[in-house]
């Protein structure tokens, strides 16, 4: 592996500015892993990471003439990806699925190889929910995504609170068995307990 002395890197940057493909490849070689690893951690999605990494290096080449750093492109590369990363951060954090994902990670342990990446996890939960019969699905969604209390759901759907509770329990069971059938975590027991543990 080439040594990454800043002296070497600033030479590469200068070469890159004048259009050297060889310099481009060398910089790619230097930074690919770090950018990839960081983006993967941040986006929690392999697909998004691949897209961002490709974009970062393509832009590096396309904008080579106007690169304004001299010593190291580390932060420059990061700046290309930054907006996308932050946007994905907001989306991930904002989703109700993310709380479940936290519990999931805590239970399985972040070192476990079978840990699903967040997108896969969220998709799987979503699939489980969409397989529920319509009434049950509506109640689960109102509880989970609209953060309604059992009482409010009962009022909206014109049913009793007990029915709401039963529907949530039953829905939960269904989702859990769906996830089991997908070889996924049974841990979700904890999760969709939205409406069940809340005392409202």
């Amino acid at each position, binding site marked *: 592996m080439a040594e990454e002395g800043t002296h070497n890197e600033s030479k590469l940057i200068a070469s890159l500015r004048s*259009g050297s*493909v060889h310099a481009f*490849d060398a910089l790619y070689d230097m930074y690919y892993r770090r950018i990839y690893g960081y983006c993967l951690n*941040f986006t929690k999605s392999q697909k998004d990471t691949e897209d961002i990494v*490709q*974009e970062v290096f393509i832009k590096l080449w396309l904008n080579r003439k106007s690169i304004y750093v001299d010593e190291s492109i580390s932060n420059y590369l990061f700046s290309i990806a930054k907006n996308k990363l932050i946007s994905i951060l907001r989306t991930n954090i904002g989703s109700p699925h993310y709380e479940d994902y936290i519990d999931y*990670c805590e239970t399985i342990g972040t070192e476990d190889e079978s840990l699903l990446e967040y997108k896969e996890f969220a998709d799987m939960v979503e699939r489980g929910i969409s397989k529920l019969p319509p009434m049950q699905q509506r109640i689960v969604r109102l509880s989970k995504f609209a953060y309604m209390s059992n009482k409010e759901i009962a009022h909206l759907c014109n049913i009793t609170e007990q029915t709401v509770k039963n529907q949530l329990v039953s829905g939960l069971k269904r989702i859990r068995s769906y996830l089991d059938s997908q070889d996924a975590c049974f841990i979700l027991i904890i999760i969709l307990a939205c409406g069940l543990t809340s005392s409202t």
Partner: protein
Amino acid sequence: MKDLIRKYRENKLSREDLRILRYKLQSVPPEDLNKAVLEDWENYPAVNYDDDDPHKEKTLCDIHHLLKIERKGFSNSFRNISRNVAAMLLPVFMIATIYYYTHPAANPSFMAVTTEKGERASVFLPDGSRVMLNGSSSISYDADAFSRGNRNIEFSGEAFFNITKDPRHPFAVNATGLKVTVMGTKFNLKAVRKDPEAVLYLKSGLVSLLSEKSGKNAIVHPGEKAVLNYGNGHISISQPDQNENILAWHTKKLSFNDEDLYSVISTIEKYYGCKIIVEGANIDNSIFTGTIPTDNLQLSIDVIERIFNVRLKIKK
């Protein structure tokens, strides 16, 4: 703040951390957030592995291919080549069509799918790629040539493309006046002969859009929208407004980002073709970020009523 970012990155957030982070994302000024993330990046170590990552090589190849970088250096030859190729494609297509129409049995490997207005169709190509056609659209290709690696299709109308990655055989969509070259991507293309312009929206991957009229080539990145003006052959690239919902016809989901009640309602009205009346004066000044379905009006209304603490009435 940067500790929270690091914890997020390492999947070590607790529920309480999540609550705090959510709050901070709403309340801190963007410069602070930018700074925190930059610091996190700076603290992220570079690790050197001795083993070779095949993915790394492949991605570099993809990049070279997309930029058409030749070992000798990046030159204008790319433009000339593609202009000639584009010019050659049109007559070839015309010949193929005429041949097909006069000798329908003679070319059994010619495949075409057309949808009527309001119809949808899903086409699977020999390489596993999938094209989801919206109404009044058509796609055609030579199945033999395609299977042999010549991944070219003719297209008109609107469709969502999900293309299998194969860097050795770039996938090309030919439509009136334009050509889209892709590697492995997902994008929405609307190219109707009668429209004044063609619109391509890229969901993921990377595409190269060629305008035959101007000979100019543009690279489109995920999340970008490219508009090709048929009149002058000019291509312009922009970031669509989050709420343009270009893919809503296909994903059956409407997404909103920081939208207020009236904005959300007007989008719902547009998609469901109904009128919604807001009852009550005590309206939350909340803003909504999330998605609602395009095929379940009642559920959409439920969610909106709850989020904005308001009662809605539907008038069909």
